[in-house]
């Protein structure tokens, strides 16, 4: 028992690791602030393109979405950060993470928006168009507000996944939360920093998880 406490819940070690953990947590937040909005925005573009009436827009986007949904995000990240230098393109770890997340997230968020858009009956668009709104205006003012509302729980769920996936950045030596925790662990030979990291993730995500299930219940009633 004492051994477990010493190895996993060692207060001395935790206090020692606190500054580096806090910085790691800050970096994780920074990643989230860049990666979530860019994914939401990229996903919107993907959704608009994949519901376009023009086949030459729809088609290539569908192929790209399939590709980026099929490639594991870790494989994509390593391809970008370790593969691209062979083509003479050298990106900082931060940029590499942001780029790979943009590609991956746009595909996933895009599919969620698309499901939302397709859940809105054609009558709404016809009503909007019959008053002279352009297709784009109808999408922005009539279709999207309803579509987003319908898939809000899915958007929140996916965002939770994205936050968790930011831990992949540790693989390319970006000093976010998990990377910092692992550093602290290897220096102190103690697992307490890892437990700390888990606690940080919990504090960050627990409210989001609650929000997601509340939204789901609210929408199903």
């Amino acid at each position, binding site marked *: 028992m004492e051994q477990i406490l010493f190895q996993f819940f060692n207060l001395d070690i935790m206090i020692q690791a606190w500054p580096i953990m806090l910085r790691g947590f800050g970096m994780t937040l920074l990643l989230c602030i860049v990666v979530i909005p860019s994914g939401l925005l990229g996903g919107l573009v993907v959704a608009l393109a994949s519901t376009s009436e023009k086949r030459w827009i729809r088609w290539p986007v569908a192929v790209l979405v399939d590709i980026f949904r099929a490639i594991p995000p870790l494989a994509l990240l390593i391809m970008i950060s370790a593969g691209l230098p062979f083509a003479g393109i050298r990106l900082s770890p931060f940029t590499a993470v942001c780029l790979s997340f943009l590609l991956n997230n746009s595909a996933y968020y895009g599919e969620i928006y698309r499901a939302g858009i397709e859940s809105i009956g054609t009558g709404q668009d016809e009503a909007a*168009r*019959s*008053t002279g709104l352009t297709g784009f205006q109808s999408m922005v003012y009539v279709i999207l507000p*309803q579509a987003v509302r319908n898939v809000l729980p899915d958007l929140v769920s996916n965002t939770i996944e994205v936050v968790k996936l930011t831990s992949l950045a540790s693989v390319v030596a970006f000093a976010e939360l998990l990377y910092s925790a692992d550093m602290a662990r290897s220096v102190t030979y103690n697992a307490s920093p890892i437990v700390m990291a888990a606690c940080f993730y919990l504090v960050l995500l627990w409210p989001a998880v609650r929000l997601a299930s509340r939204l789901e219940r609210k929408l199903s009633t």
Partner: protein
Amino acid sequence: MSQRLPILTIDNLHLRYGDVDALRGITLEAGTGEMTFLIGPSGSGKSSLLRCCNRLETPTSGKIYVDGEDITQRYINLNRVRRGIGMVFQSFNLYPHMSAKGNVMLALRKVLGKSRAEAEAIALKQLERVGLSDRAGHYPNQLSGGQQQRVAIARSLALEPKIMLFDEPTSALDPELVGEVLKVMRQLKDDGMTMVVVSHEMRFAKAASDHVVFMAEGQIVEAGPPAQIFDEPVAERTRTFLQEAYH
């Protein structure tokens, strides 16, 4: 009867979906201020014809002139054309995320570029016209079917269209709510609005319309003033249909 300046002229219109001929040579005229009623069995092409008139459908061949302009031209700004042609749908199609007032204001703001205050004033005026000034802040799910349809009418009217198209405006309503919508339509006619109506409300057609067109299988079987079509139909097809419709 009103002056017969044709504001709407349909000339030999054909519409084909795949290998289905929805419309097979429709020729029709409607004068300013007239109410034209399209009747006929389901699948006869009435709604398709109506939807061609604001280009929700693109006809395969033939011409439609609205106020002298050919709206079947290939390169035409449909958004501008549709501004002048109101449409009311069977299922209302109100925007559920906007209040009654918001529904009416949207096109005023985004299509006509009116200021918020201006759009709001027009919306309230139009809602009053359909008897709903006290419901301006209500959302569609807080309104009865008849009220929703009246908001939809106000939404179209707000753009001051030259023609109003009604696609089975009362078919989705409970019987006791039909009257309030028909009353608004009647009042529009008295205000001089040109209307083309697809509906099964035969009594209303008889009382209010200037022109009744009986369609079957994508063609006009018989057309004329209501007294002629309802009381002395010439075609056998029309007689059979009316007998069944009155049951």
